[in-house]
């Protein structure tokens, strides 16, 4: 089984199609929706974690591409700007998954994209605007 977190971009024309239903029933993938902004007639965006065998993942990805849905890795969605960050740790207690964490020896704050669920809690609390999101 493999897991991957991706950001899906739905063109306005496919916002009303049951895409996720097809991913689950036709392609046998486990779909965990982490964040979604889908409005009729508008560009939709969704952060999902897809779990399944390699072959099913590539089948599901090909299906999404055929539907004209953009697929990008999650990594670019939330960016931790290390040059801007002062490692104050204001973000650490509000991060629900520990994606933003502090090494209590060096006191440096780090960001682990694999653990991030794009809840955006950190974006509001960083006084240095060192965490940015395009979502």
């Amino acid at each position, binding site marked *: 089984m493999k897991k991957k977190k991706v950001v899906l971009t739905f063109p306005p024309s496919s916002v009303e199609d049951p895409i996720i239903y097809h991913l689950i029933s036709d392609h046998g993938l486990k779909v965990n929706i982490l964040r979604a902004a889908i409005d009729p007639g508008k560009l939709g965006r969704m952060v999902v974690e897809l779990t399944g065998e390699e072959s099913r993942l590539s089948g599901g990805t090909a299906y999404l591409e055929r539907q004209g849905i953009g697929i990008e890795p999650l990594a670019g969605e939330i960016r931790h700007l290390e040059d801007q960050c*002062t*490692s*104050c*740790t*204001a*973000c*650490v*207690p*509000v991060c629900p998954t520990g994606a933003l964490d502090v090494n*209590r020896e*060096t*006191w*440096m*704050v780090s960001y682990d994209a694999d653990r991030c669920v794009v809840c955006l809690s950190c974006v*509001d*609390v960083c*006084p*240095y*605007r060192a965490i940015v999101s395009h979502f």
Partner: protein
Amino acid sequence: MARTIEEINEKIRAGSVVVFTAEEIIEVVREKGIKRASREVDVVTTGTFSPMCSSGAFINLRQEQQKMKFGGGYATLNDVPAYAGLAAADIYLGATALPEGDPRNNNGRPGRFRYGGAHVIEELAQGKKVLLNAGGYGTDCYPKKRREQMIGFEDMNEAFLFNPRNCYQNYNVAVNLSDKPIYTYMGKLKPRLGNANYCSAGQLSPLLNDPMYRTIGIGTRIFFCGTEGYVVWNGTQHNPDVPRLANGTPTAGAGTLALIGNLKDMDPKWLRAVSFTGYGVSLSVAVGLPIPILDEEMMRFVSISDAELKAPVIDYGVFYPTGEGKPKLAEVTYEELKSGTIEVNGKKVPTGSFSSYAKAKEVAGYLKSLITDGKFFMTQAVQPLPGPNHK
């Protein structure tokens, strides 16, 4: 054993001075004891890097050929209003000043506060130019009535930070007992004790290492945002009379410092504008204070560790804004705060800080290297700060 500032400076000149940071010294004292450590160590350096709202810049603008009187008129820098009620060409730009009606700030509650006085100060320190818009009423000696010009440091005779209140000696730990999230100068506080925010470098914090103000006073030279600065007065709200632990350290915000330094010489790395969602704009500044180890008592003070420093936990949901309810929910040590969780009312609460301990370590380490390299000398204070029970 006793040591004078002159003796320390002699050793700095000779290259034989022994310096540790206020973090390193804890281990040194644990190993060697107070007596031996105070014989062997001359200076202990402290550091802090944190938002300090009571900061701002005095700027004197070079006059053009036809002169204008700013005093009694107005001035904005990138639309941020500066205070112009001074002499003909002096203005003061406060860190928290906001441009009127700017969509970067007034974008609905809670508001992002993306641009203010601190951002103008930061841009100037980065060597950028900002737009001056100013006006005066015109006099026989200052006939010009309007001035609009892109200005940078080269257009200023002087630009210095003058911060009426920096370096709070200890501070509140902020929590929220109410049922709704609140946005404060201590950050976003989640309801029902969802998180706890603190703001001090603890064992590295300048005034917590000289808790009775024995060595620090008016005229003390400090590391200030990448250059040398000075303590010019006690800071506003300086309150030495708060309750203290047996080790001399206060258990709440107590002493403060008024600081001065040449903005033109500052390193933008150590001068950062910050935006507190739902609260406003502030400026983070770096301060490093060297503590001369005059005797064993000073060594005892600087060796106090996070486990022996306590801060009060305060409810910003009701008590802080209204004065109603329980004044202090708990007292916690900095060791507990830095562990990542504290216990309040029987609940485990995750902690975060606005004071960067990583940067505090860097400041104290850098100041240590300046002293050992013979580039920073100690000063004798001209006048001590008001201490406990002063009249």
